[in-house]
């Protein structure tokens, strides 16, 4: 086997390759129908559509890697955005960048609550976070008195993060998202703690036998997921210019989960990469941008997301099936 075919093999056997191929094929098909799709402008729109999903997706990915799921991120996003927005409105002397800390902190706290309930009572995270999805939304209505934070209270510099660019004409918000992705990559791929997240998801029974403290790491991934959803919350205010308790973040969890599983992160834990997730997020972003350009009703979006989740599950299943595996390992896992 010469090195070229070996390299090719290495690339093709990775799941990321499949998503990248899908992305290219999709772009070609769409631009064949509507040539305008293949433009720098489209790229800009796609890149603007994905930062929030990408940031929250990094958190969701870590939760999935540890063989959990966090359905409450939409409500956490809304909650953090509202708290930050109320701080902008009610504490005008506060420096505007402090909003980042508030939102991230609030998100982390809510994520920690998720993790605590899941680990303390050994409950399935999907049910717990389905409950907190509704609970957090209820509490956010309560604290905000169900009132929107109007655009006039969102600090100008925050808004401009979605518009102005530090370099190459790429807005700050995209830089932030890519930075988070880069940090996530270093964290997950190059630190001991990151690898422990994979280990817990890959074999939760074996992890404690190898000295991995499952409970703190589980708490950590939920907290990180919450914190990143919180960060996405303040960026929501930046991107859309206001925060509304009954709109902000509603249904966001499905978009993020769809993007992450499309990116090849396994719902069974232990499998998935940052690069895959980034590609998955961009793919779904491209789909949502292509629909209006093709003149297809936005109503198709949810149906496509649902189908995409199911197809990704089936692909994940067949990838697992195809590998030679040991029955004893599976039984123990």
């Amino acid at each position: 086997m010469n090195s070229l075919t070996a390299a090719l093999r290495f690339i093709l056997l990775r799941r990321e390759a499949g998503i990248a191929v899908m992305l290219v094929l999709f772009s070609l098909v769409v631009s064949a129908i509507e040539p305008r799709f293949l433009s720098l402008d489209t790229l800009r729109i796609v890149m603007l559509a994905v930062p929030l999903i990408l940031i929250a997706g990094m958190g969701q990915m870590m939760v999935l890697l540890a063989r959990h799921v966090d359905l409450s991120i939409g409500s956490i996003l809304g909650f953090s955005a509202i708290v930050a927005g109320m701080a902008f409105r009610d504490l005008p002397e506060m420096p505007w960048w402090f909003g980042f800390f508030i939102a991230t902190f609030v998100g982390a706290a809510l994520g920690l609550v998720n993790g605590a309930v899941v680990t303390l009572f050994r409950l399935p995270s999907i049910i717990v976070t389905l409950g907190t999805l509704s609970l957090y939304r209820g509490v956010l209505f309560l604290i905000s008195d169900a009132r929107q934070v109007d655009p006039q209270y969102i600090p100008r510099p925050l808004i401009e993060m979605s518009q102005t660019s530090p370099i190459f004409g790429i807005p700050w918000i995209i830089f932030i998202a890519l930075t988070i992705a880069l940090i996530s990559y270093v964290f997950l791929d190059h630190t001991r703690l990151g690898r422990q997240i994979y280990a817990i998801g890959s074999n939760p029974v074996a992890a404690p036998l190898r000295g991995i403290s499952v409970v703190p790491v589980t708490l950590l991934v939920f907290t990180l997921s919450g914190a990143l959803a919180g960060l996405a919350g303040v960026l929501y205010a930046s991107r859309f210019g206001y925060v509304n308790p009954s709109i902000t973040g509603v249904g966001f969890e499905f978009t993020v989960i769809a993007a992450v599983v499309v990116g090849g992160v396994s719902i069974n834990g232990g499998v998935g990469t940052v690069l895959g997730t980034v590609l998955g997020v961009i793919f779904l972003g491209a789909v949502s941008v292509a629909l209006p350009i093709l003149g297809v009703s936005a109503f198709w979006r949810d149906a496509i997301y649902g189908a995409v989740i199911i197809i990704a599950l089936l692909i994940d299943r067949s990838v697992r099936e195809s590998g030679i595996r040991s029955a004893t390992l599976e039984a123990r896992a």
Partner: protein
Amino acid sequence: MSDTSIPKSAVQDAAPVRPRWKTILLRPEAMTFVLLILATLGASLLSPFFADIAYILESFTYYSEYAIVGLVLTLVIISGEIDLSGAAMMALSACLFGITYQAGYPISVAILVSLISGVAMGWFNAILVIRFKLPSIIVTIGTLTLFRGIAQVIAGDRSISKFPSWFVGIDYQYVLNLPIPVIVFCVVALALGVILGGTVLGRQIYQIGTSAIAAQHAGIRVNRIKTGLFIGMGVASSVAGLLTASRLASVRYDLASGAELQMVLIVMLGGTYIFGGRGSIIGTFLAAWLLVIIATGMTVANIPINAQLTVLGLLLIISIIATNIIYSRTQR
């Protein structure tokens, strides 16, 4: 070093059995019943307008559709699976019903289409869960998005209405002074209660939920029963969708949106164990009334919806935790 050194007594062969009264009082259903009484008292104190049987029955009709699906969901959860797509199946089957009727077919055909779609959607879930061995909880999150998305695609944002007058307003039809949806709920509860508590099928559902592998080894047709339960979910959702269509005299893609949470809430409040193998129809039956009383009590007292959402979210989490604690205590 002799073999006789191993002491033996009945105590070591089997732990002493708990007294019967304790096993009954420690059941989560007992908790649900106590909560129901407390909630009724609380609601009566909260608002003088609450304590009115006709009003409570009328309010129950608004939740009866979810409660009916919740009854079947109870069986699904006892069998160790879960189906979060019930509300989306309600919406899609109801939209298919509306579209078929609007296309000029007789209403009986439209009802048939709706029921068939219920079977098909339940079967689709079952295939993914059983044939492809995917976890039902995530599969049905996918299908809930998919089904509602399809409903949105085929029905748009349109409100489909103008059904014949005999079809409309089933919630204002009374038998023995009870609105028909309440009767349907009670009949379904009774039927499923008898099946679950008194028949071999019911027994096998518990056994599957306790250990699907042991059930398979004991000759129980696990896959067939689970498939049946998923299809049952689809049919119940389709019936619930039709009841909603009759009650509202119109259908839209967003029918019952977010109701999966309330369905799960009803089952959890009724003390069904999220990991399967335990639970009862009587628990779900009581929990449906409990939910209605809490929600109605708060609504008629004009407590803002913000507080209501918070209370319901808390209830779900607390009921899961409480049930989990009760069962893990009695298990060991």
